[in-house]
């Protein structure tokens, strides 16, 4: 299937109504892994289908199908129309508020070293090598290196002539070492498993993938001998690979406008943020500057248009600590009467778009890493998330990391295991005391953000420096 054939098949008998959109998604993916020196079953995926959405007489309906023949698409159009008629007069929003798709354009990820530039045998050889270098001692009881590549192409067509074609390359590299001695098991990974990017194999060079394995293995072993993280209220310095989780859970999700409007209350939850807070609420200290930025080259959720066809633009969400705008797409904006962002996104051809994070980034500050450490008399530095839990209003949270290092009298001293911390979103960001400069910035992201009914898994990006927080409740493991 190609976008051109899809377009031809669809237009043989387009939906019998004045307003419709059709979204084709073709994903070709490959998952390669070497575990304990053994090449794991190689999986190649080809996932193609389309969703047709119809607006008719005040109703809205969709049908998604993997039958992309003229007859299959015609049947889908008719079924979508039937749903539009069923829902007419029963919707909680007015489809007339959604501007018809008229935009036309193209977006394409850049890949300096395309996935295909290295043959399968070369990729497996590379993973064999990295996997072997993870096993730095006998107490490494499991170790694995993997690459997951996806070539994703979307075409959105609209009844008013809109046509948006986007072509993405996604890469998710992973390294994992598990160390054990008797009743203690500790795991280190490549940035907590949250490294999703756009691009080709050059991403591996940029992220330091090729040199990371021995360090990851050694740190897993080191954690076996480390004492538990101490408990108490102290300063907390978070590495970029934990900051992305902190931003994601306690800024990103509570600012999603569909949560605030109540759509997610039965599943992902609501938000402590209310509509009246935008423009006046102090979300964090003056050092907090958060941007929605779908234009960062190589970041995983960069795109030209969202799945409703709204052009994507960089927008400040929080500036100097002040809450400015929600993460809400065109439909939510119309319902709430607020300006938002272009973030109607779907996980694939078989799910309708909803409000999602895309790239949600913390702007770098001007503190060097050494200066932030030096500013702490008693505290802890935490790296790489391994546990996350937050209430359904996105307020009371508890997060855990793979590795902690004590900070004593301005110096990093001993490694500690099982570092955890807890807090409340509404006050936590006000304790932001320093934001790292560009030297601490990392462009990261996750391919696994879950939300929506029916459920959807989404790729979201976070670029962030390290950051320092004052007076946080931290603690370690043990019963």
């Amino acid at each position, binding site marked *: 299937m190609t976008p051109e054939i899809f377009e031809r098949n669809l237009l043989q008998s387009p939906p019998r109504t004045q307003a419709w959109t059709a979204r084709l998604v073709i994903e070709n993916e490959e998952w390669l892994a070497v575990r304990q020196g053994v090449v794991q079953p190689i*999986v*190649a995926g080809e996932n193609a289908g389309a969703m047709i959405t119809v607006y008719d007489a005040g109703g809205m309906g969709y*049908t998604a199908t993997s039958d992309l023949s003229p007859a299959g698409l015609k049947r889908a159009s008719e079924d979508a129309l039937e749903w539009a008629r069923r*829902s007419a007069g029963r919707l909680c929003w007015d489809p007339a508020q959604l501007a018809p798709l008229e935009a036309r354009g193209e977006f394409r990820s850049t890949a300096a070293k395309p996935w295909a530039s290295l043959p399968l045998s070369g990729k497996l050889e590379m993973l064999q090598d990295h996997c072997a270098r993870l096993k730095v001692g006998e107490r490494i009881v499991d170790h694995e290196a993997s690459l997951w590549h996806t070539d994703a192409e979307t075409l959105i067509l609209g009844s008013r002539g809109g046509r948006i074609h986007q072509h993405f390359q996604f890469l998710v590299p992973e390294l994992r070492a598990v160390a054990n001695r008797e009743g203690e098991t500790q795991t280190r990974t490549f940035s907590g498993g949250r490294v999703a990017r756009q691009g080709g194999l050059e991403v591996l060079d940029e992220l330091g993938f090729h040199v990371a394995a021995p360090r990851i293995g050694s740190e897993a072993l080191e954690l076996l001998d480390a004492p538990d993280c101490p408990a108490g209220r102290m300063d907390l310095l978070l590495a970029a690979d934990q900051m992305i989780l902190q931003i994601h859970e306690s800024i990103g999700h509570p600012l999603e406008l569909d949560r605030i409007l109540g759509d997610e*209350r*039965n599943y992902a939850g609501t938000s402590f943020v209310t509509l009246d807070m935008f423009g006046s609420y102090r979300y964090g200290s003056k050092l907090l500057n958060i941007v929605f930025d779908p234009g960062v080259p190589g970041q995983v959720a960069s795109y030209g248009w969202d799945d409703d066809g709204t052009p994507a633009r960089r927008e400040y969400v929080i500036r100097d600590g002040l809450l400015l705008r929600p993460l809400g797409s065109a439909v939510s904006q119309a319902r709430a009467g607020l300006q938002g962002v272009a973030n109607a996104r779907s996980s694939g051809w078989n799910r309708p778009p909803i409000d999602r994070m895309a790239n949600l980034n913390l702007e770098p500050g001007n503190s060097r890493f050494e200066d932030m450490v030096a500013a702490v008399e008693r505290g802890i530095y935490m790296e790489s998330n391994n546990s996350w839990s937050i209430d359904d209003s996105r307020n009371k949270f508890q997060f855990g990391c793979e590795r902690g290092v004590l900070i004593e009298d301005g110096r990093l001293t001993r490694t500690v295991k099982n570092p955890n911390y807890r807090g*409340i979103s509404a006050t936590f960001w006000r304790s932001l005391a320093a934001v790292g400069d560009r030297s601490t910035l990392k462009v990261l992201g996750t391919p696994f953000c879950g939300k929506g009914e*029916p459920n959807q898994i989404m790729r979201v990006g976070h670029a962030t420096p390290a950051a320092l927080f004052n007076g946080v409740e931290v603690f370690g493991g043990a019963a």
Partner: protein
Amino acid sequence: MKARFAEVTKELRALLRGDEAFLASFSGEEADFARFNRGRVRQAGTVRQLFLALDLVKGRRHVTAQLTLAGEREQDRARLAATVASLRERLSFVPEDPHMLYSTDPWVSESLGANRLPEAGAALEAIRGRGEGFDLVGIYAAGSMHSGFASSLGHDLWSSRYTFHFDWSLYHEKDKAVKTSYAGFTWDAAGFERKFAWAREQLAVLSKPPVTLSPGHYRAYIAPAALNDFLETLSWGGFSLKAHRTRQTPLLRMIEEGAKLHPGFTLAENTAGGVAPAFQAQGFPRPERVELIGRGAYRDCLISPRSAKEYGVPTNGAQASETPLSYDLAAGTMPQSEVLPRLERGLYINNFWYLNYSDRPRCRVTGMTRFATFWVENGAIQAPVSVMRFDETAYRLLGERLSALTREREFIFDANTYGGRSQVTALLPGLLVEDLTLTL
């Protein structure tokens, strides 16, 4: 759908060359989804999806393709031919797989459910009509779910189910809500009405001013839906042979130190009592029952074919993730009617939320209370409780601090729809615990 899969199998057989073999797993569904907010429709539609996982095998080498099928003969025939050619080309680049294991004893099985589902428009109207005047939010999902497995050796396995699931909440205000679900094979207006009446009753209590608790230790009743969340978290490696052998299981203390749960705690993977197919993706049968924990002691792991080969033990038909599909926790002896009197003073927790490990090797889990969690005094529900965080080990919650399990059990359909509609089920009692640690 079954006929189409039989055609696919026939076409695959014709595409093989020499000593090649294939394993083909099929999953398909036609699902209606209607999403509600404030008693009205937010989004509604139908998803028709057909997926094939095809493993091409030659000796000890194999490669897998996962592809969507159109369900239309000509499109699928071309795609199958291209896929087999591509897999054949890749076979020469992959090494032998020492852990490959698939069923070499062909067998035939067919389980066909009856379609007694309501027409989509009628279900939509029943929900919308009943939700009028209420702040109702949730999702209705209904339709067919098909699973199949076939191989060039002669396996011919098929399962079809037709189920609906209405997973919904009634809101009082802010985060104060009652969550429930109504699921099954046939829509029964009286059954739905009973569920709705129960939710309305609890909603009335939610309108009282909430109690805010301080961190500390509290007696608690954990309802089956909340317990289900906890058991799902335990299943992140807790019952997996691979996780046990690599010491990543959260139940590490049970295998290293012989730690035990409450003697009344007997948990099984009860395939016979669930709705998931009785076969798995390498063609092995899933036994009717595998006891995971018996009278508080660790019994058996779920063993996928791959783990079986790696660790030199027989498989028990587990899927690759080695997680249960049909949880069955033995009933206790406490009548449901005695829950409140025996709790006397403490928390009545209907739902947990967002559980995760705070110390995995010691099986310490943190999470939140959510939806209708109530404060109980003098054996009666008094008021809703503002959401609280707990942080507790399984050994305390399901072991030393567990005082009783209810005699009645609830059958829970998993509402998960990631990728497709879940076929995971759970048959669970409620738990009365002496001490739950709240931290925030």
